[in-house]
Protein backbone atom coordinates (compact mmCIF):
# COMPACT_ATOMS: atom_id res chain seq x y z
CA UNK A 1 0.00 0.00 0.00
CA UNK A 2 1.48 3.32 -1.03
CA UNK A 3 -1.30 5.49 0.33
CA UNK A 4 -4.82 6.81 -0.02
CA UNK A 5 -6.54 9.93 -1.26
CA UNK A 6 -9.55 10.73 0.90
CA UNK A 7 -10.08 14.48 0.74
CA UNK A 8 -12.61 15.87 -1.71
CA UNK A 9 -10.27 18.33 -3.40
CA UNK A 10 -7.56 15.73 -3.82
CA UNK A 11 -10.08 13.28 -5.27
CA UNK A 12 -11.34 15.92 -7.70
CA UNK A 13 -7.76 16.70 -8.73
CA UNK A 14 -6.81 13.07 -9.28
CA UNK A 15 -9.97 11.82 -10.96
CA UNK A 16 -8.63 12.80 -14.41
CA UNK A 17 -5.18 11.42 -13.60
CA UNK A 18 -6.00 8.12 -11.93
CA UNK A 19 -9.67 7.55 -12.65
CA UNK A 20 -11.01 4.75 -14.80
CA UNK A 21 -11.29 6.11 -18.35
CA UNK A 22 -14.91 5.07 -18.83
CA UNK A 23 -16.25 6.14 -15.44
CA UNK A 24 -18.03 9.42 -14.74
CA UNK A 25 -16.89 10.76 -11.39
CA UNK A 26 -18.68 13.00 -8.96
CA UNK A 27 -17.97 16.71 -9.10
CA UNK A 28 -19.40 17.24 -5.63
CA UNK A 29 -17.24 19.07 -3.12
CA UNK A 30 -18.16 16.60 -0.37
CA UNK A 31 -17.28 13.29 -2.05
CA UNK A 32 -14.38 12.54 0.27
CA UNK A 33 -14.39 11.49 3.89
CA UNK A 34 -15.51 13.96 6.54
CA UNK A 35 -14.01 13.86 10.00
CA UNK A 36 -17.02 15.76 11.38
CA UNK A 37 -19.24 12.90 10.17
CA UNK A 38 -17.20 10.30 12.00
CA UNK A 39 -15.76 8.80 8.81
CA UNK A 40 -12.60 6.96 9.71
CA UNK A 41 -9.84 5.18 7.84
CA UNK A 42 -6.93 3.15 9.16
CA UNK A 43 -4.33 0.69 7.93
CA UNK A 44 -3.49 -2.74 9.28
CA UNK A 45 -2.00 -6.08 8.25
CA UNK A 46 1.45 -4.65 7.51
CA UNK A 47 -0.10 -1.82 5.50
CA UNK A 48 -1.94 -4.20 3.18
CA UNK A 49 -5.44 -3.63 4.56
CA UNK A 50 -7.49 -0.43 4.63
CA UNK A 51 -10.20 -0.32 7.29
CA UNK A 52 -13.11 2.03 6.71
CA UNK A 53 -16.03 3.18 8.79
CA UNK A 54 -18.21 5.57 6.84
CA UNK A 55 -21.27 7.61 7.71
CA UNK A 56 -22.92 8.46 4.43
CA UNK A 57 -25.38 11.34 4.14
CA UNK A 58 -26.99 12.54 0.93
CA UNK A 59 -23.74 12.61 -1.07
CA UNK A 60 -21.14 9.87 -1.47
CA UNK A 61 -18.11 8.84 0.55
CA UNK A 62 -15.20 8.00 -1.72
CA UNK A 63 -11.56 7.02 -1.25
CA UNK A 64 -8.82 6.31 -3.75
CA UNK A 65 -6.32 3.61 -2.76
CA UNK A 66 -2.91 3.46 -4.43
CA UNK A 67 -0.75 0.35 -4.27
CA UNK A 68 2.48 -0.71 -5.88
CA UNK A 69 1.70 -2.17 -9.29
CA UNK A 70 1.15 -5.88 -9.27
CA UNK A 71 3.83 -7.72 -11.23
CA UNK A 72 1.11 -9.76 -12.94
CA UNK A 73 1.08 -7.58 -16.05
CA UNK A 74 3.58 -5.40 -17.88
CA UNK A 75 2.87 -3.64 -21.14
CA UNK A 76 4.12 -1.31 -23.81
CA UNK A 77 3.28 2.40 -23.64
CA UNK A 78 0.62 1.93 -26.29
CA UNK A 79 -1.41 -0.35 -24.02
CA UNK A 80 -3.47 0.89 -21.06
CA UNK A 81 -4.55 -1.57 -18.38
CA UNK A 82 -7.79 -0.54 -16.69
CA UNK A 83 -10.59 -1.91 -14.57
CA UNK A 84 -13.30 -3.66 -16.57
CA UNK A 85 -15.37 -0.86 -18.14
CA UNK A 86 -19.14 -0.69 -18.26
CA UNK A 87 -19.14 -1.14 -22.03
CA UNK A 88 -16.93 -2.14 -24.92
CA UNK A 89 -19.66 -1.71 -27.49
CA UNK A 90 -18.60 0.36 -30.48
CA UNK A 91 -18.18 4.10 -29.87
CA UNK A 92 -18.41 3.85 -26.07
CA UNK A 93 -14.84 3.27 -24.89
CA UNK A 94 -12.62 5.01 -27.36
CA UNK A 95 -8.96 5.99 -27.46
CA UNK A 96 -6.92 7.29 -30.35
CA UNK A 97 -3.68 6.27 -28.66
CA UNK A 98 -4.11 3.05 -26.74
CA UNK A 99 -5.27 -0.51 -26.90
CA UNK A 100 -7.13 -1.03 -23.61
CA UNK A 101 -6.68 -4.26 -21.68
CA UNK A 102 -8.77 -5.24 -18.68
CA UNK A 103 -9.14 -8.27 -16.41
CA UNK A 104 -12.44 -10.10 -16.79
CA UNK A 105 -12.38 -13.21 -14.59
CA UNK A 106 -9.59 -14.07 -12.19
CA UNK A 107 -8.79 -17.44 -10.63
CA UNK A 108 -11.82 -18.76 -12.46
CA UNK A 109 -12.61 -22.44 -12.89
CA UNK A 110 -13.79 -22.87 -16.47
CA UNK A 111 -17.37 -24.12 -16.37
CA UNK A 112 -16.89 -25.83 -19.73
CA UNK A 113 -14.21 -26.56 -22.31
CA UNK A 114 -12.92 -23.47 -24.14
CA UNK A 115 -11.30 -23.48 -27.57
CA UNK A 116 -8.39 -21.08 -28.10
CA UNK A 117 -5.41 -20.61 -30.37
CA UNK A 118 -2.11 -21.22 -28.63
CA UNK A 119 1.32 -19.66 -29.14
CA UNK A 120 2.04 -21.82 -32.16
CA UNK A 121 -1.23 -20.84 -33.80
CA UNK A 122 -2.78 -24.22 -33.24
CA UNK A 123 -6.34 -24.62 -32.06
CA UNK A 124 -6.49 -26.27 -28.67
CA UNK A 125 -9.04 -26.95 -25.99
CA UNK A 126 -8.63 -25.76 -22.41
CA UNK A 127 -10.41 -28.30 -20.28
CA UNK A 128 -13.38 -27.56 -18.10
CA UNK A 129 -12.23 -26.95 -14.53
CA UNK A 130 -8.90 -25.36 -15.47
CA UNK A 131 -8.26 -22.36 -13.23
CA UNK A 132 -7.63 -19.38 -15.48
CA UNK A 133 -7.44 -15.61 -15.69
CA UNK A 134 -9.27 -13.98 -18.55
CA UNK A 135 -8.32 -10.60 -20.03
CA UNK A 136 -9.89 -8.56 -22.81
CA UNK A 137 -7.98 -6.38 -25.24
CA UNK A 138 -10.02 -3.67 -26.92
CA UNK A 139 -9.31 -1.01 -29.54
CA UNK A 140 -11.80 1.60 -30.68
CA UNK A 141 -11.11 5.15 -31.73
CA UNK A 142 -12.84 8.44 -32.55
CA UNK A 143 -13.28 7.53 -36.16
CA UNK A 144 -14.15 10.57 -38.27
CA UNK A 145 -15.49 8.67 -41.24
CA UNK A 146 -16.70 5.27 -42.21
CA UNK A 147 -13.94 2.75 -42.76
CA UNK A 148 -11.07 5.13 -42.03
CA UNK A 149 -8.20 2.90 -40.85
CA UNK A 150 -5.95 3.51 -37.83
CA UNK A 151 -3.06 1.32 -36.77
CA UNK A 152 -2.71 0.20 -33.15
CA UNK A 153 0.38 -1.72 -32.13
CA UNK A 154 1.46 -2.88 -28.67
CA UNK A 155 2.23 -5.77 -26.41
CA UNK A 156 1.33 -7.11 -23.00
CA UNK A 157 3.24 -9.61 -20.87
CA UNK A 158 1.83 -11.81 -18.15
CA UNK A 159 3.51 -13.39 -15.17
CA UNK A 160 1.53 -16.54 -15.85
CA UNK A 161 1.71 -18.60 -19.05
CA UNK A 162 -0.71 -17.60 -21.79
CA UNK A 163 -2.82 -20.63 -22.62
CA UNK A 164 -4.21 -19.06 -25.75
CA UNK A 165 -6.32 -16.33 -27.27
CA UNK A 166 -9.74 -16.00 -28.82
CA UNK A 167 -9.57 -13.51 -31.65
CA UNK A 168 -12.46 -14.24 -34.01
CA UNK A 169 -15.97 -12.87 -33.63
CA UNK A 170 -17.60 -16.27 -33.35
CA UNK A 171 -15.29 -17.33 -30.54
CA UNK A 172 -15.66 -14.04 -28.71
CA UNK A 173 -19.44 -14.09 -28.85
CA UNK A 174 -19.48 -17.70 -27.69
CA UNK A 175 -17.44 -16.86 -24.58
CA UNK A 176 -18.72 -13.41 -23.51
CA UNK A 177 -21.22 -14.94 -21.09
CA UNK A 178 -18.74 -17.43 -19.64
CA UNK A 179 -15.54 -15.36 -19.51
CA UNK A 180 -16.71 -11.78 -19.79
CA UNK A 181 -16.58 -9.28 -16.93
CA UNK A 182 -19.93 -9.41 -15.12
CA UNK A 183 -20.65 -5.67 -15.37
CA UNK A 184 -19.43 -5.10 -18.93
CA UNK A 185 -21.68 -4.78 -21.98
CA UNK A 186 -20.05 -6.50 -24.96
CA UNK A 187 -20.42 -5.79 -28.62
CA UNK A 188 -22.69 -7.81 -30.85
CA UNK A 189 -21.01 -6.43 -33.98
CA UNK A 190 -19.97 -9.06 -36.50
CA UNK A 191 -16.61 -7.32 -36.89
CA UNK A 192 -15.64 -7.20 -33.20
CA UNK A 193 -12.92 -9.81 -33.66
CA UNK A 194 -9.72 -9.55 -35.65
CA UNK A 195 -9.70 -9.69 -39.41
CA UNK A 196 -6.91 -11.86 -40.75
CA UNK A 197 -6.26 -9.62 -43.77
CA UNK A 198 -5.18 -6.60 -41.68
CA UNK A 199 -4.94 -7.59 -38.00
CA UNK A 200 -2.30 -9.82 -36.49
CA UNK A 201 -1.03 -11.09 -33.18
CA UNK A 202 1.95 -13.15 -32.14
CA UNK A 203 3.52 -14.58 -29.01
CA UNK A 204 7.03 -14.09 -27.66
CA UNK A 205 8.93 -14.36 -24.38
CA UNK A 206 8.25 -18.09 -24.02
CA UNK A 207 4.60 -17.54 -24.73
CA UNK A 208 4.06 -14.99 -21.95
CA UNK A 209 3.92 -11.91 -24.18
CA UNK A 210 1.17 -11.20 -26.68
CA UNK A 211 2.04 -8.77 -29.47
CA UNK A 212 -0.80 -7.03 -31.26
CA UNK A 213 -0.85 -5.15 -34.57
CA UNK A 214 -4.37 -4.13 -35.45
CA UNK A 215 -5.92 -1.88 -38.05
CA UNK A 216 -9.13 -0.50 -36.59
CA UNK A 217 -11.81 0.96 -38.82
CA UNK A 218 -15.39 1.95 -37.91
CA UNK A 219 -16.01 -1.08 -35.69
CA UNK A 220 -13.82 -2.34 -32.86
CA UNK A 221 -10.99 -4.86 -32.75
CA UNK A 222 -11.00 -7.11 -29.71
CA UNK A 223 -9.31 -10.24 -28.41
CA UNK A 224 -9.68 -12.38 -25.31
CA UNK A 225 -6.49 -13.65 -23.66
CA UNK A 226 -6.55 -16.64 -21.33
CA UNK A 227 -3.69 -17.31 -18.91
CA UNK A 228 -3.20 -19.83 -16.19
CA UNK A 229 -4.21 -18.43 -12.82
CA UNK A 230 -1.57 -18.16 -10.11
Amino acid at each position, binding site marked *: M*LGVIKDSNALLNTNPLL*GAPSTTYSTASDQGLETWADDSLSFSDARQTVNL*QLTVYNSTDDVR*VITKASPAITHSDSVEV*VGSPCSVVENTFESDDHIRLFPERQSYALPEDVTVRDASGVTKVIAKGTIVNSYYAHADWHNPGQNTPKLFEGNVSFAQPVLGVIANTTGLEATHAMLGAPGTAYSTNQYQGLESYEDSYSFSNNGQTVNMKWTVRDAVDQMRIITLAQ
Partner: protein
Amino acid sequence: MQLIGAPCSVAPDVLESNDFIRAFPERLAYALPADTTVLGPDGAPTVLAQGTLVDSYFVHADWINGVRTRPRNSPAA
Protein backbone atom coordinates in the same frame (compact mmCIF):
# COMPACT_ATOMS: atom_id res chain seq x y z
CA MET B 1 -17.35 -4.68 0.60
CA GLN B 2 -18.09 -5.69 -2.97
CA LEU B 3 -15.35 -5.78 -5.64
CA ILE B 4 -16.79 -4.78 -9.01
CA GLY B 5 -15.65 -3.65 -12.45
CA ALA B 6 -15.33 0.05 -13.19
CA PRO B 7 -18.91 1.32 -13.29
CA CYS B 8 -20.26 3.83 -15.78
CA SER B 9 -20.70 6.40 -13.04
CA VAL B 10 -19.97 7.07 -9.39
CA ALA B 11 -21.77 10.39 -9.35
CA PRO B 12 -24.18 10.74 -6.43
CA ASP B 13 -27.40 8.69 -6.62
CA VAL B 14 -26.21 6.47 -9.48
CA LEU B 15 -24.40 3.46 -8.03
CA GLU B 16 -26.20 2.95 -4.76
CA SER B 17 -26.30 0.16 -2.22
CA ASN B 18 -27.78 0.01 1.24
CA ASP B 19 -25.55 -2.94 2.10
CA PHE B 20 -22.17 -2.64 0.41
CA ILE B 21 -19.22 -0.37 -0.02
CA ARG B 22 -18.06 -0.90 -3.61
CA ALA B 23 -14.41 -1.05 -4.74
CA PHE B 24 -13.12 -1.25 -8.27
CA PRO B 25 -9.78 -1.11 -10.09
CA GLU B 26 -9.25 2.07 -12.05
CA ARG B 27 -5.79 1.75 -13.56
CA LEU B 28 -3.35 -1.13 -13.32
CA ALA B 29 0.38 -1.22 -14.00
CA TYR B 30 0.12 2.54 -14.52
CA ALA B 31 3.08 4.90 -14.64
CA LEU B 32 2.05 8.05 -12.77
CA PRO B 33 2.06 10.92 -15.27
CA ALA B 34 2.74 13.46 -12.51
CA ASP B 35 3.86 13.61 -8.90
CA THR B 36 0.90 12.59 -6.75
CA THR B 37 0.41 13.33 -3.06
CA VAL B 38 -1.25 10.64 -0.98
CA LEU B 39 -1.79 10.03 2.69
CA GLY B 40 0.74 7.35 3.53
CA PRO B 41 0.09 4.41 5.84
CA ASP B 42 2.05 6.26 8.52
CA GLY B 43 -0.54 9.04 8.40
CA ALA B 44 1.77 11.56 6.78
CA PRO B 45 1.47 13.09 3.30
CA THR B 46 3.72 11.29 0.85
CA VAL B 47 4.61 12.32 -2.68
CA LEU B 48 4.65 9.48 -5.20
CA ALA B 49 7.06 10.44 -7.94
CA GLN B 50 6.04 10.74 -11.56
CA GLY B 51 6.73 7.45 -13.31
CA THR B 52 6.05 5.27 -10.27
CA LEU B 53 4.20 2.13 -11.38
CA VAL B 54 0.99 1.85 -9.41
CA ASP B 55 -2.40 0.19 -9.28
CA SER B 56 -5.26 2.54 -8.44
CA TYR B 57 -8.55 1.48 -6.83
CA PHE B 58 -11.65 3.50 -6.04
CA VAL B 59 -13.79 2.86 -2.98
CA HIS B 60 -17.32 4.21 -3.13
CA ALA B 61 -20.26 4.35 -0.75
CA ASP B 62 -23.65 5.74 -1.67
CA TRP B 63 -27.05 4.57 -0.55
CA ILE B 64 -30.69 4.94 -1.45
CA ASN B 65 -31.20 7.93 0.77
CA GLY B 66 -34.82 8.81 1.36
CA VAL B 67 -34.18 11.82 3.54
CA ARG B 68 -31.55 14.37 2.60
CA THR B 69 -29.67 14.60 5.85
CA ARG B 70 -30.28 11.18 7.29
CA PRO B 71 -26.98 9.36 7.74
CA ARG B 72 -26.25 5.69 7.21
CA ASN B 73 -23.34 3.99 8.97
CA SER B 74 -21.29 1.37 7.22
CA PRO B 75 -19.91 -1.57 9.08
CA ALA B 76 -16.16 -1.48 9.39
CA ALA B 77 -14.85 -2.78 6.07
